[in-house]
């Protein structure tokens, strides 16, 4: 209310001196804006760009155990694009992305639609319960699932044995990626659900009323009104999932403890970069690997975006 009044006051100022004064105000405002942004940007420069630049610089050198450090130009990058371990890691996280992300987002979408439909009893309890894993540290989540997956003492194994069924080999080479996908889905499905749910709640009521007047059923409303409204939120969730998947690190790093024979030091691309940097003493090469991984993420994000936008315009 105050704003409306204020706005009308502002509009009523004399027109003559307006132009010059406006310019002066803009210049002053511009400086003020930069000042507001300055603390953040200063820290961003110091804590993000400077290390990044340093990493880029390091990636142009090579340090050998014998012979020391020398400038090698782009050699590290040339080596990295031919590195079978890196390629394997990237392919693996790409597979992970293709399998896990659609499942997680679809689940989150279904949960959000179900909760928004008003057809579920105790919906608040369900909503909170599904969201709770988001508050659990990744360290603890991996620990818990690690035990649940256990081939001898894990409850699933115990139940299978009691029922005389074959024990599901969660931690075997063939299942591991799926088991990891399950942990990540468990952690983040609820979070995505809340985001989508919030977007659903923000759909104006008059849209539903109009649809009801037109005689649209629940499914038709979901399809024609709800899904389009969720599009931006879904797209953003997808973007973050690209970044999250390709940078997959915490879960494999922690599950390595219980399945060291399946998860090796190059299981995911990011884990590989970490191992190179911290245990392999190859800081320079690790920096190059990280940059290439960043590049892959940029390309995939862009491809996802392009696909989504093309589909929308067609």
């Amino acid at each position, binding site marked *: 209310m105050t704003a409306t009044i204020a706005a009308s006051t502002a509009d009523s100022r004399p027109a003559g001196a307006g132009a010059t004064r406006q310019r002066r105000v803009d210049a002053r405002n511009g400086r003020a804006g930069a000042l507001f942004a300055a603390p953040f940007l200063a820290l961003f420069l110091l804590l993000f760009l400077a290390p990044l630049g340093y990493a880029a610089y390091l990636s142009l050198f090579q340090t050998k155990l014998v012979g020391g450090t020398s400038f090698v130009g782009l050699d590290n990058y040339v080596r990295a694009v031919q590195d079978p371990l890196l390629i394997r890691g990237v392919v693996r996280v790409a597979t992970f992305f293709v399998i896990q992300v659609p499942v997680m987002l679809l689940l989150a979408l279904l949960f959000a639609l179900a909760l928004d439909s008003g057809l579920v009893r105790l919906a608040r309890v369900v909503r909170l319960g599904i969201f709770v894993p988001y508050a659990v540290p990744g360290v603890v989540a991996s620990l818990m699932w690690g035990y649940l997956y256990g081939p001898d003492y894990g409850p699933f194994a115990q139940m299978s044995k009691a029922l005389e069924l074959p024990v599901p080999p969660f931690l075997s080479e063939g299942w591991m990626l799926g088991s990891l996908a399950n942990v990540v889905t468990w952690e983040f499905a609820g979070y995505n659900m809340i985001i989508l749910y919030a977007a659903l709640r923000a759909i104006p009521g008059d849209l539903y009323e109009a649809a009801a007047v037109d005689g649209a059923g629940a499914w038709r409303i979901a399809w024609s009104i709800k899904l389009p409204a969720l599009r931006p939120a879904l797209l953003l969730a997808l973007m973050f999932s690209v970044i999250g998947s390709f940078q997959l690190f915490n879960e494999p790093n922690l599950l390595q403890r219980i399945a060291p024979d399946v998860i090796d030091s190059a299981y995911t691309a990011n884990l590989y970069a970490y191992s190179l940097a911290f245990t392999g003493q190859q800081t320079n090469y690790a920096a190059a690997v990280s940059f290439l991984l*960043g590049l892959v993420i940029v390309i995939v994000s862009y491809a996802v975006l392009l696909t989504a936008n093309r589909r929308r315009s067609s």
Partner: protein
Amino acid sequence: MPEIAPNHPLLSRRGFLAAAGAVGLTAALAACGADSGTTSTATGPVSQADIDKAMTTPTELTFWTWVPDIVQEVALFQKKYPAIKVNVVDAGRGTPEYTKLRTALQAGTGAPDVVQIEYQYIPTFTITDSLLDLRPYGASELKDKFVDWTWGQVSGANGEIWAIPQDTGPMGMLYRQDIFDQYGIQPPKTWDEFADAARKLHAANPEIYLTNLAGNQAGVWHGLLWQDGANPFVTSGKSDIAISVNDESSKKLARYWGGLAQEGVIGTEADFTDSWYASLNNGKYATWITAAWGPVFLAGSAKSTAGKWRAAPLPQWDASKPASANWGGSTSAVIKSTANPIAAAQFAQFLNSDPESAKLFATEQFFFPATKALLTDPSYVGDAPEFFGGQQVNQVFADIGTTVNTAFTWPPFLDQVVTDWTETVGKSLTARTDAVAALDEWQSRITTFATNQGFTVR
């Protein structure tokens, strides 16, 4: 209602590319370099006067160690040298500590003065010139106090003394007397008997295996190589190395263990995992190929099996020439960049060679000793824990300790060797595929790495 539309910066194509490009550009701009710290350290012997002066000058030392309750031993040192204050920091067990140490060394600041290092990692830190040679500080005089092979482990190619032994792990075999009795198996004296027993036991009860050879445990593999008299990593100078992890001795091991794995008569699950603990508790394995720290460890980890275990030497390739190896155990080393080399060296020496301090390690932390005095001390070797049915297990391992080969040396890039082992030989054991072929792959991977790192591979 505002919403994310395709024209939002992050989600529009142009904005996106601009963002991505901008990051790349800025990244290329900034640059700075790390300079390495320079410290003067003694080359000739340090005089007693210098030592006395240093030990009475108020000094603070930082000591990284993961030994629980080590403050008791440290207190003994501080009682004798009240001027020196030792800050004990637990920077992680093994790998996490080395990771931090390496990063701190690279940064040139933040490294401790004294650090706990396992034997096998000493060459990894001497190749980067990070450890202080303790000879000028009187370490040579301690040689006779320690078991011979431990001294070999802490000595460099040119006689340097890189660290002082703290505890050790001569390898032996722990076995389940009850399971052996039940299936009529005698404790195997040779590896041939061991293989027969493995087949016999598994045939009698498919739920039980004679042992587990973990596909993630390069330490045991190196121990078995060591027992066989192999010395696969030989460096004579700082820039050359001979690598032979697929020689005849190694191939014999690979055929043996790979064969047992392929027959399916031994387990190959990862060790020190939750699943492995469960297996120890529920009697899935009748033996554990382990080291002298194993008995105490087992007594804490498999309480439900108390009284059922016994200790014996490793099975032998040649029963007339008993041999063993070491797995585990630590040393105290001084970091070269220390500002107080004399005090740091004195601390490392006192901590592990002072009789009272060394004894505390054995009685408080239950470490298997590195000093000759303790290994002949009746109060130590005479201990007869109930967990092992009253057997004097310390005596068993003290005897084994005298059979450890002295020549074995570790490679100067252990992490790489271990990683490559796990991904070749270890994997072949777990997957029960051709272990001999995996050896060749291991050899080729290490050789490539060494060449890339500038070594002359002989």
